[in-house]
Structure formats: structure tokens, C-alpha cells
């Protein structure tokens, strides 16, 4: 019987003692920056019975200038290629910073690495509040997401699974043994909205509550959940010189996580023509019209809905 199979599959993990919360991985995503600055002055909100989380500002130079990055995107720099590279005088600031963060909260892949790292992000896309986890690490982060979905009542929290299966994890939270990103939008770069700030604070509080309950021996039962798995991206139509020749269609704008079917309009040119989605199957677009993705040649990311069966969890 299915129930028996789930019960038999109770997973055990080590208690979680070293937890970090990073804001400002991108220096113009203001919710995380403001929260971390507040927690650095007043850490009480990050303290629980069984542990305390450490807040830190990931990209101080970019934060100072209120830009996404100075040399290269910090949140694409946590791969072995960069972390193991030798220091060079002409390397981008973020490469040096990534190595520092890897020293403080990693090293990535080692037994000394922090147990959990949360990264706080904003997007100009209408994603609401979504939880971004790595496809490779399914157990603890998924239970944490499920706990948030069932306990954090301020909203609806879709789960986004990133990394293509063979792709090495590149984001800051991959430095720790387990990671999760909170992505809240829409919020313009450089703008601090009170509503998203409150929601971000509540999400972090809820996540730390989960970890505390886990550390105290709570059994978290098996469950099934729906998630959105990243499968690729779609660029804007461009002129031969690289300039955009169309904008996201008004019917697609702000429709993150809603189904996009073949034949639905996705772009409109400046002369008024519609461009339709040519894919073969329904997909769920996310990060529709994110400012920082124009240069990455992404108008929106494609995801497909999947169902995950997660076994029960208890600490060792």
C-alpha cells in the first residue's frame, strides 16, 4: 500500500545548526538588503531556541552603488570554475567576493559548509512570492517549502525548481549544504515596497520556525506537492544589431505561473504585429519581463508543472 511505502521511507537528517541569510546578492534588490541591514543592527528576529541565523550582505560594492553587480553577476559565480580559480589582479570584483563567501559559509561541497543558506531576491516580474530550490536537493528544502505553504498565511507560494539536471548549481545558496531562495515581485530595482518587505520578513521567520521544529525532533509527514520545473527560456525578437524589435505582449505581461499555450500571443512589435508562442506544449512562464534578463537574452523562462512525492522527515 502506498501509505506503508511512505512510512517505510522516513528520512533522517542531521540537525541544522549553522544557518545564514544573505541579502543584496544583487545590489539593487532592496527587500533583502534592507532586512539584512536591520538584522545586523537588531539580530533578535533571527534567533530561535536551537540556533541563530547569521545575516550578511553578499555584494557590498554593488549595494553601495545600487546596481545589480559591478563586474559580473555574483549569483552566477558560485561554480567550481570561479571558486577554485587563482586570484588575479584583473578579475571581476564578484569572483573575489564569491571566494570570500565560499570561505565564510562553505566551502561548497565540504562537511564544514553551513547547513542552510537563504538568499533574498526581488524581481520586476509578477511572480508574487515564490520559493526557488535546486532540483538536486529535494528533501529538507521541500519540507521547508511545504511548511511555508501550510503555515505562512500571507499568501500563495509556488515552488520553482531550478538548474537543468546536468547543470552545476551556480547560485550563492549552493555554497551551503542546503539552500533556498525567496523571490518577491514585482518590485522595481532600487525601490523598497513596504508590502513586499513585510512578506519577505514573514517568510524568513516562518523558515526559521521550521528549522527550529526540525531540530527539536518534530516528524514531518510525507506529502505530495506541485512544483514548476525550469526547462529553458525564450528571448525577445531582435534586430540583427541585437536591439529589441518587440515588447512582451500585454496578454502575457504579469501572467507568471499561468498556462501559456501554443498559439497564445507572447510579443508585440512596435509596428503593432503580434508574435505567437510556437512551442508544442503548454508551459508555465515565469520571470516574464525581468529587467536584469534583457542582457541575458531572456524575455521569460519556461517551466513545466510536475508533482513531487516527498518522504517523511525527522532529525537524527
Amino acid at each position, binding site marked *: 500500500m502506498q501509505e506503508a511505502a511512505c512510512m517505510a521511507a522516513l528520512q533522517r537528517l542531521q540537525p541544522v545548526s549553522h544557518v545564514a541569510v544573505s541579502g543584496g546578492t544583487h545590489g539593487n534588490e532592496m527587500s533583502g538588503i*534592507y532586512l539584512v*541591514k*536591520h538584522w545586523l543592527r*537588531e539580530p533578535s528576529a533571527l534567533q530561535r531556541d536551537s540556533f541563530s541565523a547569521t545575516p550578511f550582505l553578499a555584494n557590498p560594492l554593488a549595494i553601495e552603488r*545600487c546596481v545589480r553587480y559591478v563586474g559580473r553577476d555574483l549569483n552566477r559565480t558560485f561554480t567550481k570554475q570561479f571558486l577554485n580559480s587563482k586570484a588575479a589582479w584583473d578579475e571581476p570584483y564578484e569572483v573575489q567576493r564569491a571566494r570570500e563567501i565560499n570561505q565564510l559559509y562553505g566551502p561548497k561541497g565540504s562537511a564544514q559548509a553551513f547547513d542552510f543558506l537563504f538568499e533574498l531576491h526581488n524581481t*520586476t516580474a509578477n511572480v508574487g512570492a515564490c520559493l526557488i530550490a535546486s532540483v538536486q536537493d529535494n528533501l529538507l528544502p521541500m519540507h521547508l517549502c511545504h511548511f511555508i505553504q501550510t503555515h505562512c498565511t500571507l499568501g500563495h507560494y509556488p515552488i520553482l525548481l531550478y538548474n537543468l539536471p546536468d547543470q552545476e548549481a551556480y547560485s550563492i545558496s549552493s555554497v551551503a549544504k542546503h539552500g533556498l531562495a525567496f523571490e518577491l515581485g*514585482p*518590485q*522595481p*530595482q*532600487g*525601490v*523598497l*515596497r*513596504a*508590502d513586499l*518587505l*513585510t512578506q519577505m520578513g514573514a517568510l524568513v521567520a516562518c523558515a526559521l520556525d521550521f528549522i527550529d521544529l526540525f531540530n527539536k525532533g518534530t516528524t514531518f509527514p510525507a506529502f505530495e506537492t506541485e512544483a514548476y520545473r525550469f526547462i529553458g527560456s525564450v528571448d525577445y525578437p531582435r534586430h540583427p544589431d541585437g*536591439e*529589441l524589435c518587440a*515588447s*512582451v*505582449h*500585454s496578454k502575457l*505581461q504579469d501572467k507568471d505561473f499561468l498556462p501559456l499555450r501554443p498559439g497564445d500571443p507572447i510579443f*508585440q512589435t*512596435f*509596428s503593432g504585429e503580434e508574435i505567437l508562442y510556437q512551442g508544442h506544449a503548454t508551459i508555465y512562464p515565469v520571470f516574464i*519581463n*525581468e*529587467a*536584469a534578463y*534583457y*542582457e541575458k537574452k531572456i524575455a521569460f523562462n519556461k517551466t513545466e508543472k510536475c508533482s513531487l512525492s516527498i518522504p517523511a522527515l525527522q532529525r537524527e
Partner: protein
Amino acid sequence: MTSPATLNHHKDHYICFQQSLKLLNRMTSCSVVLGAPVRRVAIFGGTHGNELSGVFLVKHWQKNGAEIQRSGLQVTPFITNPRAVKKCTRYIDCDLNRVFDPDNLGRKVMEDIPYEVRKAQEINNLFGPKGSDVAYDLIFDLHNTTSNMGGTLILENSGNDFIIQMFHYIKNALAPESCPVFLIEHPNLKYATTRSIAKHPVGVEVGPQPQGVLRADILDKMRKIIKHGLDFVRIFNEGEEFPPCTIEVYRIIEKVDYPRNKNDEIIAIIHPCLQDQDWQPLNKGDPVFLTCDGETIAYEGDSTVYPTFVNEAAYYEKKQAFVKTVKVKLTAKGLRSSSS
């Protein structure tokens, strides 16, 4: 390069020109002003390089300008800050939309001159000189804001009957959609804009749109405003008489900064009740800011004000959380082109 002496000379010409108009006015019926026909029009995009509606509209019109052509007019689309546009940033060295004052326009060009000051002088040579009678007749300067201002028209001078009539025309054409008019005339808060080099400067500010993002709905709104503005000019040139009219405008009275600590760090943010409420009345006791500790800071003024530019990204560094305005009625005299 324009020296201060040349600028004054042009100013004298402009004053003579204005006096001739006044004489013409006295010679015709008292309720109708004759205005010189408007022939040379420019549309500026990219004054701030990350405000994308104007950037893409101007680039599109430079490739295919049919939409902005009107008979009897020359309409020139122009990117004012190309380096900032390339980098998708507001500015390179300093805000281009603040340096069209006589000091900066007359400044000697040295090696270390800020890029935008050099650009301002080039633009002044091409479309000005500011204050002279050879300056462009009309400039539309296209902007976006992260604030929820809708499609706002910006007026620099409460005595410009031509622009007030144009705004009246545009507002009617867009109704029932609202089209607020923001009057920035103020002894010290008014700033020297790129468009101020023209005889008739018009600011078009559409939001909310994040910096570096191009939204189809916002682009469309801006496009409609320009269409109606150009239609007005054509109709005016062709001799239509516009009767006296009155429009309601919001006049700037004061800027309000974020509460800060002694390290100049922001310690309270725009309250959720004020966020997105541009142009809505703010009364004594209404929430304005929210502190880190969750406390509300309320508005303490005695009279109703109408906030705008609420939570504009670019204004954090200018120490501006929002600006206060008051509602004012402006009347324009009847208007007809003097060439008809």
C-alpha cells in the same frame, strides 16, 4: 558653444518677440491670443537611459517615422543621452535633466567636463539655443517613473496658453482615462530640464514602470499622448480657434525626504497606505512612513495635499520620498494661430 553674452543677446531677441506677440494680441479681439504657428517639433527619448518607453519609441520612429508626421510640421525624434541608453542607466556622470541652466550651458568645455554637460551644450546647439527665437517651437520629453502616476503631463510655466490649450485637448481626447497635469513652476524647486530649451517644453511622464523594463501598456499610453499632442499642433496650425479653457493642475509645493538616522541611512519607508496613491488626497493623520519597528509616521500638515512621485527609484539619492502638490485651476485665453 554658447557664451553667457550670446545667451543674453538671444534672450533680448526673445523678449522682443514676446512683445510683438503682445502687440498683435491687443490688435485682435481681447479674448483670443494669436500664437505663432508651431513648425519645428522634437520628441526626446532616453534623457534617462533606463526609462525605456521613450527610448524604444524614438528608435522606432527614427526607423519609421510615418506615425509622427503631420502636415505643416517637422517632427524630429532624438535620443538625448545615447551613452546612458547603451548602458541602460539613468546617467553616466550627472542627471542630464538638471543641467540646462545658463551656467552649465555656458560652461567652458574642458577634459573633465561631465558627459551630460557636454551633451547638454550639443543639444542646446541643435535644438536651441535656449531663449532665442531660433530655438525649436515644441519639445516632448519622454520619461518613465516607478511611481504610480499614470500618464502625467508636466508643465513648466503657468502662463503658457499654448501648452495649457494642448493639455486641455489631450485630456479631453483621453477621457475618461485620467491625465494629471503636474506644474513644476516654483521659485527654487523648478529644475532646468532638457526640454526647457524649446519655446514650448512638454514633459510626458508615464508610470509605473521599473527602470530597464519595457511594458507594452505603458508604451501604448505614451504613444497615445504623443499622437494627441501632435494632432493638436496640426489643428492649431491649420487655423482652428480654441476658446478660453480651464484645466485643473497639481502644483508642486514641497519635497519630502525619507526619515534618516545620523548616518544618513533610511529608517522608515513609504507606508503601504501611501504606496501607489499618487494624486490621491493626503490629509492630516494619514499614514506616510513605516519604521523598521513597525510604527506609523503620519502626515502632520493642516491642509490637504496631493502627493506624487511616491517612491520613485531615482529619487532615493535626491532625498525625495514623494512631493506634495496642491490643486490649482489654470485658465488659458482663447488661442488661434497667427498665420491663419
